[in-house]
């Protein structure tokens, strides 16, 4: 970029709408997959912790350590074993969601009023029925709050997967942007990628909030 040239070139965006669409798709795909798998694993871990509360410390310790590993280093540590494909990206992304989700689901389940659980038991609910019909619905707002944090975090981390060849919006930021910083269109690509990543995070956050409100109509009046 030289002086006097426009900082942001709308024509690049218009000409590359297909490319941008593909990258958004890749980004959303990886994010959804990572959060869904992370949620399933975390849910299993949280249920295990419900039965054996002593496991909480070790689980949080291990997932907390994984959480502290920088994303590029995490991908890099996996590359010799799982290559530079989607498996490597997912293993790291899922690992990052675990600390957030396990803590959150456990906290949510522990926060269910004991009276409600007792009432359900008194009405003859089995353990599974109680979980699905009483505990989970009551814990849902807190659980969704955790999913929102995990999703926004994951959307940010997915940008880094471009560095191991996974595309996504990081491809616009780095491959088409930073790496071509001196070309007239490099800055435009970088800013397009960043703005879309932030936009995606905001949209996902609001969408999950809307889902939570729709699923828990009784919680609305309490604000």
């Amino acid at each position, binding site marked *: 970029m030289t002086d006097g040239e426009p900082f942001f070139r709308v024509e690049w965006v218009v000409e590359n709408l297909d490319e941008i669409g593909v990258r958004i798709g890749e980004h959303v795909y990886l994010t959804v997959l990572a959060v869904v798998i992370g949620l399933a694993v975390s849910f299993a871990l949280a249920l295990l912790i419900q039965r054996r509360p002593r496991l909480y410390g070790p689980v949080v310790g291990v997932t907390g350590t994984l959480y502290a590993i920088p994303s590029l280093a995490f991908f890099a540590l996996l590359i010799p074993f799982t290559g530079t494909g989607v498996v490597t990206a997912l293993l790291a992304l899922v690992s990052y969601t675990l600390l957030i989700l396990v803590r959150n689901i456990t906290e949510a389940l522990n926060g269910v009023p004991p009276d409600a659980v007792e009432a359900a038991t008194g009405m003859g609910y089995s353990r599974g029925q109680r979980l699905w019909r009483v505990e989970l619905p009551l814990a849902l707002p807190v659980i969704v709050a955790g999913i929102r944090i995990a999703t926004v975090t994951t959307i940010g981390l997915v940008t880094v997967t*471009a560095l191991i060849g996974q595309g996504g919006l990081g491809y616009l930021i780095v491959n088409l942007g930073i790496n071509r910083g001196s070309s007239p269109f490099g800055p435009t690509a970088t800013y397009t990628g960043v703005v879309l990543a932030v936009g995606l995070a905001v949209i996902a956050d609001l969408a999950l909030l809307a889902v939570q409100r729709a699923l828990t109509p009784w919680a609305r009046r309490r604000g």
Partner: protein
Amino acid sequence: MEFFGEVVAWFANLETWSGRNGIPSRLWEHVSLSAASLAVGTLIALPVGLVIGHTGRGAVLAVSIANIGRAIPSLGLLGIVFVPALSLGLGLGFWPSLIALVALAIPPIVLNTYVALSEVDRDLMEAARGMGMRETQILTALEIPIGLPVILAGIRTSAVQVIATATLAAVISGGTLGHLILAGVNTGNEVQVFGAALLVALLAIGTEIGFGLLQRAATSPGLRGDRTAANNPAALPTTSGG
């Protein structure tokens, strides 16, 4: 298992430890960039957090800053800074990286400092005022010592994030251990990729543990015991990993 032998051999090789792409040179870039960013970030964020926490004004601002910080990917932050830095002639590498990392370090420290001070018992402060303590005395003798562990928790969160994102600074020619990773990825040198990543991971985890110990040591004996991760609001929600 053969692979781990190669990694050990890589670490044992003298070439790995010498020159521009040697571990000492890249590790120094990583640590000095991270330390400088954290120091500048703390110098900016701490006073802001103290003022917000003590006066209670601007709390919405603090929370908003933290939320926006969470939504901007750290790689994006490097990109945002990189482009104008290029056109302003700041060059590649250190300075743009420093600016991005400082911006990254600020939100968790502001948020935690604000929360730390706002959690201090109002009755204690009233008592201090009643005893004739001035506002600055209340801040230094009461609020900061009581809030110190939570403040340090914010600095810890920032430190780990800064170290993580310093790895990504390699993308804008910031060097660091990230350069060894990316160079390894580009040339298919998986041994170097793994070895350098191991160092980065150890650096981050070591920092996390080190600050954890510092936090424990800074907790006033009277407050020890009942306070755990619950009073580290920034530890979770902010973006990890970079």
